[in-house]
């Protein structure tokens, strides 16, 4: 069941790339993006990095209890976001996807509020930082158990198919996630149903300290698509345009009724796994440095500069803007205040059962 007029082959030996390290277009097809779109991509990558850095700073200041750095994943995440129809398609993201959610349009104040644990979080500060979601944007609230969002994503895609809604479900996860039974169960069900889902692995080569070699016997993630009868795309996830185009094609394929696919975006995580991690215990510094030299922002900036779409001045102005935006978001999120203690009893069910009412009274000392 392969569509015609496709740009990319599944199961390539090498990751698909359309832009080389020098920022030159090597796509072999016509770039069909407007200048504003291209600069938008870059701005979103820059925004992801700024937010990442600033949240990290808040964590070190003790204001945010935890961060999961996204540095190195920006191109992949921005590529995914822009290939989607925001508010129409559904997204099942994972904790490292702050940059993706922002590029999709989720308000920064909600993301920041979620991490600060204030009432600016539409989820009422019920979860730890880096676990946002949005009913408004069809973004399923992140849950910590790795891969546990994959079967639900399959279900939403099957529901979209049954409804003939023309919507698509995108589900992201790391390389480690692919080892979980729930990952397999979910992807397999979507495959059996030919549901309009795109499963996207942001493969940074590590699950905390565990490298790919200990994670699985396969050399890459996209080959796992064979198990489900779907195409597997192997993509350079440090190339925002490759990420975008392959995702666009996989999404179109799903939307047109040709079923799900698995996309592997090869990236690297610059920081530790999280603020609780010390990655020097398991990653050679040389490896980190080598990947940093392949920075997705630098590469894409070269691309834009060649087209005179970007320069130092725009960079500085944008950074200023993004910094101010973040500062304002923190202020607004903090002003929202923390949810009252009693609110921990809400939303267990639509109504408050007698037992919980009693427990609330006891806990609040009203018993």
């Amino acid at each position, binding site marked *: 069941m392969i569509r015609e007029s496709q740009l990319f082959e599944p199961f390539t030996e090498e990751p698909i790339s359309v832009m080389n390290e020098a920022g030159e277009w090597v796509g072999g097809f016509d770039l069909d993006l407007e200048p504003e779109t291209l600069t938008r991509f870059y701005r979103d990558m820059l925004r992801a990095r700024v937010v990442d850095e600033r949240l990290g700073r808040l964590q070190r200041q003790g204001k945010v209890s935890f961060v999961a750095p996204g540095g190195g994943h920006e191109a992949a995440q921005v590529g995914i976001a822009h290939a989607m129809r925001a508010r129409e398609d559904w997204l099942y993201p994972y904790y490292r996807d702050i940059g993706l959610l922002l590029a999709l349009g989720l308000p920064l104040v909600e993301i920041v509020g979620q991490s600060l644990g204030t009432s600016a979080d539409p989820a009422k500060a019920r*979860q730890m930082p880096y676990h946002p979601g949005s009913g408004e944007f069809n973004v399923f609230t992140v849950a910590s158990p790795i891969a*546990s969002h994959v*079967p*639900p994503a399959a279900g939403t895609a099957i529901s979209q198919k049954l409804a003939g809604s023309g919507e698509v479900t995108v589900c992201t996860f790391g390389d480690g996630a692919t080892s979980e039974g729930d990952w397999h169960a*979910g992807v397999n069900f979507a495959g059996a149903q030919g549901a309009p889902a795109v499963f996207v692995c942001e493969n940074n080569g590590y699950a905390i300290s565990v490298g790919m070699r200990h994670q699985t016997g396969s050399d890459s993630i996209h080959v796992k698509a064979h198990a489900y009868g779907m195409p597997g795309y192997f993509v350079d996830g440090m190339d925002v345009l490759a990420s975008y185009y392959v995702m666009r094609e996989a999404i179109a394929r799903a939307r047109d009724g040709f079923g799900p696919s698995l996309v592997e975006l090869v990236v690297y995580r610059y920081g530790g796994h999280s603020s609780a991690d010390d990655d020097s215990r398991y990653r050679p510094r040389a490896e980190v440095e080598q990947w940093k030299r392949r920075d997705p922002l630098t590469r894409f900036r070269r691309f834009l500069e060649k087209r005179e779409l970007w320069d130092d001045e725009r960079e500085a102005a944008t950074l200023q803007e993004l910094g101010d935006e973040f500062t304002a978001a923190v202020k607004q999120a903090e002003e929202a205040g923390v949810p009252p203690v009693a609110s921990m009893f*809400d939303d267990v069910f639509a109504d408050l059962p007698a037992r919980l009412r009693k427990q609330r009274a006891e806990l609040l000392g009203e018993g």
Partner: protein
Amino acid sequence: MSAVTMVQAVARTLDEEMARDPRVVVMGEDVGKRGGVFLATEKLFDKYGPDRVIDTPLAEAAIVGAALGMAVHGLRPVAEIQFADYVYPGFDQLVSQVAKLRYRSGGQFTAPMVVRMPAGGGVKGGHHHSQSPEAHFAHTAGLKVVFPSTPKDTQGLLRAAIRDDDPVVFLEPKRLYRAVKEELDDDPDFALPIGKAAERRRGDDVVLVSYGGSMAETLRAADALVEQGISPHVIDLRSLAPWDEEAVLSAVARVGRVVLVSEAPHTASFMSEVSATIAEEVLDALLAPPARVTGPDTPYPYAQDREYLPGPNRILRAVQRVLDY
């Protein structure tokens, strides 16, 4: 309407709700052409087709998890786990995702779905076709848990479960699937409130509390007591989360003696909760310690399929102890 068995009550209620509400879909292993291994979904495939009666892969995580993803997207899935013993591969989905979605999303997403599963022993199924895992669900915040024992309760509670805006684990006592027939209610909106017990018999000497499959043995024990001139008060809990504390506590407060009957393993079971609550709430009314008659803390055996279950003899012995206290 003619009288039907409990498993027929399941099939009929599913049919009625699917006819009424196009959002209701049924899914699980063999629920399609096969009509379910117990025929709880018989004829639905012919009537509603593969889009609404979905044969799933053999993966309970996929069943429970995908049901959640469908519910989130607007459907009202009724998922079948072929035997309650096979819920464990889907346990993570149930406790980590389904139970908590409303809470952790601050109400942005909800999970209006039902997970049905035949449970309990007495069918010579050996360990992995006999378990009663309800305590795991009752202990999990965010799940409603229902465990009826009659065809009509099944109708009323399954309808309520399907229409509920929160996830409901719906346990069906498989050894009672074809044990008795009962007329169902003709009212297409007949539903029973989740959380309300049924008084099966009014009496003054001892309160018997049970639910699900063990109701059968409890009622047999109650009959024997009546013959002995003892007056049992019998409560069928029907729902375990929420459970009808009011019905139990008021009866125990009045009668002073109580025997709790459930085939689930003894330790940290649902009846532990009932026993503890009784002691904590109506201690002074107790004329004897609450007694539990339960399955022992062994895996469910094969050769002793019947002996494992708390049968009338064990119940009567417990009643005697409570009366003699």
